[in-house]
């Protein structure tokens, strides 16, 4: 386990010297929430949503979670294309531990990235039970691992063409975010739009986090259903990523 932590820290410490990208993300979140979020909340009024700025803040956090999950997948592809993957594969640790280190690094990055946005959001929402907040954080990590696994699963495309991988991931990300409940509840969506949104993993992540943070359950999906979908997503995609790492990466020239 010590080697797993070493692997994680070796990369992570570089990203913290200095942590520009994290500070930029926090700045973007703050600007979005207190300028765009504040203005748009004056335009959006619905009896089910007492304060759209709060709804928007949670949605934005879910979107950051999705971005970090995607980043983890991309990081793996970059490792392969920059020639670092063969080195990682030659280190004296098992493939499971190597995969765990990739996934956990994504988890640590997510934790770092969410610290300030989550603190601001929780401050905006106020009066929350510790257990609810803990459950919401666990949900976000579950979603992050699921998305990272999905992107790692898609990384096999990058071994054929990195351009195609970038195009597919960018296109998929656009669809997954727009066709979801990140910024608007499912019941407000037109029928066709809602059908597509109901297969987006972000819909389940956003609705479950909102449920745990005390939003009106009548505009959200059934939380038990959301837990089941997110758990299935994380387990299946991480499992798929693991199989690909063993079967595919060791079978092709990766750099």
């Amino acid at each position, binding site marked *: 386990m010590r*080697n797993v932590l*070493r*692997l994680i820290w*070796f990369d992570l410490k*570089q990203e913290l010297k200095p942590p520009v990208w994290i500070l930029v993300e926090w700045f973007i979140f703050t600007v979005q929430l207190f300028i765009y979020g504040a203005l748009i909340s004056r335009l959006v009024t619905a009896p089910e949503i007492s304060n759209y700025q709060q709804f928007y803040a949670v949605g934005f956090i879910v979107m950051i979670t999705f971005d970090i999950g995607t980043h983890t997948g991309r990081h793996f592809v970059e*490792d392969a294309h*920059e*020639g*670092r*993957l*063969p*080195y990682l*594969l*030659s*280190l*004296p*640790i*098992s*493939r499971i531990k190597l995969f765990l280190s990739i996934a956990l690094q994504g988890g640590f990055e997510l934790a770092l990235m969410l610290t300030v946005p989550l603190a601001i959001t929780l401050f905006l929402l106020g009066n929350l039970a510790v257990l609810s907040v803990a459950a919401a954080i666990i949900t976000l990590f579950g979603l992050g691992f699921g998305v990272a696994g999905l992107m790692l699963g898609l990384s096999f495309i990058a071994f054929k063409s990195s351009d195609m991988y970038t195009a597919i991931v960018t296109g998929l990300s656009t669809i997954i975010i727009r066709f979801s409940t990140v910024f608007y509840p499912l019941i407000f969506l037109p029928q066709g739009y809602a059908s597509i949104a109901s297969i987006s993993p972000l819909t389940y992540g956003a609705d479950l986090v909102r449920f745990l943070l005390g939003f009106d359950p009548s505009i959200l999906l059934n939380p038990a259903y959301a837990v089941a979908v997110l758990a299935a997503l994380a387990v299946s995609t991480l499992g798929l990523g693991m199989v690909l790492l063993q079967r595919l990466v*060791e*079978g*092709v*020239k990766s*750099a």
Partner: protein
Amino acid sequence: MYAVETQNLVKRYGKFQALKGLDFTVNLGEIMVLLGPNGSGKTTLLLSLATVLKPTSGTAKVMGIDVMKQPTAVRQILGISFQDARGFWRHKPAEILDFHGAMCGVKKADRTPLIEQVLKELELWDARNKLFMHLSGGQTKRLEVAKLLIQRPKFAIFDEPSSQVDLRGKRTIWEQILKLREAGSTILVATNEVREAEFLADRVTILDQGKNIVCDTVRNLKDKITGGDIVELELDQANGDKEFQEELSKIPGTAKITPVEENKYKAYVSVAEAWVPKMTSLFYQRKIRVSSVRVTEPSLDDVFLSCTGKKLETNANA
């Protein structure tokens, strides 16, 4: 037990077969050099032994451990210096070596002085705090080699260890590889540089198109070439005697005698060490005085040409 043993090892990339049923062994404690042009399967073999690539079929064992059945155990006794050192753009050489040593189980107390020593020996000490992306090609290559000098694995693999390195740097790297062997490591080096192979090899395996063409010591490989050694003779006086030339060509191991000038001959012989005393004896009997004898050995490039019908150095950069 062999340090490495492969039997009928096959690796396919789609329809392309990089290794075609390779049988190959490395003895414990030796430096085996894999010599072959680009595309001959050298790197594929190294990556398969290092468990980075999974062979399609056949078996491969490192120190008796099957690379497909117990890959993690293999990685614990093996280290590899890759052909291209890349991907650590924002790390510094000292950090990279410290990380590598720690991952490979070198204790902190041993690691710190060892890193300093290796960085100094490979002339990387002044660059120890530069970012990897600011190092020159030669420096990154030396850093790649340095990883194994810190790790000191039982079985060390070097893939073209001195490519992109200047002549002085090459010599330093080769000497460090020899030191590593003296410290107890078995070493496998892949190269397409004849000088590197001749400097390092206890034995050489020539690979071509995924097959083991021949394996032997450098000396034996050179001796296997009929007429590979060239002996240039200069006589005190001109000698146009045809009978003398015939006697010279009857010395065992002579492939061809060519007069260059009236008093100069070129003899193409198989083993110069055996041929020259017989030639001297013949000259003594005939009371012919020789003013100079010069022996030129064949290079491993000539060996490669003799075994495959192709020139190694031309293909190397193709």
